[in-house]
């Protein structure tokens, strides 16, 4: 080995060692744990089994949690798209001063703590919170609305939390659409809505796909917001993993659930990358 190889090895060693010892090794160990048998009362056994995966994938209790998590991911993704797309358009069409201010207002919540923002939503959504009190004092409702500890609250909270990512990915995607293409469509007498649907949206698709996958993946692995706005009874995969490890102490089941969550996440990211790559290639051809 020459001197630059030694230098290179020395420079990457600390970072690589950290990742191997504190990321790869724990992940592999958890893989082993997910294959251990578990008996309530005695704890983790020493036999190998796939029972943990089977029980998670067949037990109605876990299936409901997984279905709810994926549904939540879908709803939040759609909500961020519906709110984020017009906001991204607005940013592109504004004057530079308004643009800067708007971008700062999009980035500011992104950098505020997720616990703080979820807490803010609790203040707004709780039965005696700001929204219910205001509606009641206006005489619009007699009973407080159930805005929290259910799907509504979790969707509102997660949509607000992940919306900045969607906007920040949609802005460059829309910006990169050449003006000529849009002008050509309009020049050929396509209507504004038709141009939007057949030119703008398809050309922004790589950005839309990237943003949607990112929001979906972040939503299904969210722990803090579902716990704070969903309460102890509204369970999703991440909160169930937390409970298996911290409350039930059924580590094999928690590990199996964690691996299923990871598999869904990595699978989606991998699939989206391939889809985006193929789509971009298709556009150039």
């Amino acid at each position, binding site marked *: 080995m020459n001197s630059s190889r030694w230098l290179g090895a020395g420079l990457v060693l*600390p970072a690589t060692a950290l990742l191997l010892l504190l990321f790869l090794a724990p992940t592999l160990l958890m893989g082993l744990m997910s294959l251990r048998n578990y008996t309530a009362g005695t704890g983790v056994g020493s036999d190998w089994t796939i029972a943990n995966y089977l029980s998670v994938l067949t037990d109605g209790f876990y299936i409901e949690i997984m279905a709810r998590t994926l549904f939540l991911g879908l709803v939040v993704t759609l909500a961020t798209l519906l709110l984020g797309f017009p906001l991204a358009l607005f940013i592109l069409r504004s004057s530079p001063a308004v643009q800067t201010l708007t971008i700062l207002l999009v980035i500011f919540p992104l950098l505020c703590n997720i616990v703080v923002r979820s807490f803010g939503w609790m203040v707004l959504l709780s039965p005696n919170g700001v929204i219910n009190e205001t509606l009641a004092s206006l005489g619009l409702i007699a009973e407080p609305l159930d805005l929290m500890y259910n799907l509504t609250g979790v969707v509102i909270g997660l949509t607000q939390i992940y919306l900045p990512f969607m906007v920040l990915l949609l802005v460059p995607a829309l910006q990169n659409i050449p003006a000529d293409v849009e002008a050509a469509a309009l020049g050929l007498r396509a209507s504004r809505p038709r141009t939007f649907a057949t030119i703008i949206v398809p050309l922004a698709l790589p950005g839309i796909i990237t943003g949607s996958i990112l929001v979906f993946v972040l939503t299904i692995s969210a722990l803090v917001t579902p716990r704070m706005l969903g309460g102890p009874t509204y369970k999703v995969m991440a909160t169930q993993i937390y409970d298996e490890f911290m409350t039930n102490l059924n580590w094999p089941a928690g590990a199996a659930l964690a691996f299923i969550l990871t598999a869904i996440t990595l699978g989606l990211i991998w699939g989206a990358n391939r889809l985006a790559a193929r789509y971009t290639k298709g556009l150039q051809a």
Partner: protein
Amino acid sequence: MIPRKPTLLLTLFALLVLVFMNAPTVVVVLASFTKTSYLTVPPQGWTLDWFSEVLTDRGYRRAISTSLTLAAGATALSILLGTAASYALHHRLVRGRDAILSLVMAPLVFPAVVIGVALLQYISMLGFRGQFWILMLAHVLITLPYVVRSAMSSLTGLNPQLEEAAMVLGSNRFEAFRLVTLPLLKPGLVAGGIFSFVTSLDNVPVTIFLLTPRQTTLPVKIFASVEHGVDPSIAAASTLLVAGTAIALILAQKWVSFTRFF
């Protein structure tokens, strides 16, 4: 796209979305000034009592100092490890560049809660549970991708001839790095460092699994307090966290403009 002015409808919609995006933070900040003993918005009267309560409370003070120590230490280590690794990877001084890069970036795509439980199990088995340095290294793990990404993109943007010129003029590799490359990397490293600091300061899903009952960080303490009922002191603690983040950002604005991303 063809430049055109936003319509009134689009402007109104955008305004509503911006209100939606910023409402929870504004509400928390407002609620922390109330004179009442319960949370209410708009606040009734203005007082700083809740802040002095948080800042004199021993539990909160320890949580704040733990959070800051953790974030500062993890960021410093991340910058050190991340810059060194990025330099070697950029100059292709090691084999397996892509594999190492994917490994370093992996914690970014893994669900944070999974990293948390995997570490919990691993360090319990090794008997390191509750050690502060383990917690700090776990934070390096989750902040390193930001520093490496930032450093790699800054290195790609550099003119390689500058470093070569320094070496032709007689400086060795380290001097060329310290005197030429490092100053040019500074904006990228500051941006990556700020992002890493904020990420560490905010983290709950990894941290919560690695704390002992006697340790806590500010966001974990707020998260845990909420389960026992809410009062304005939680809002005050949250406001402090928001203020800390805002100060970090204003400092960062000196070096990096956020709008340059567009």
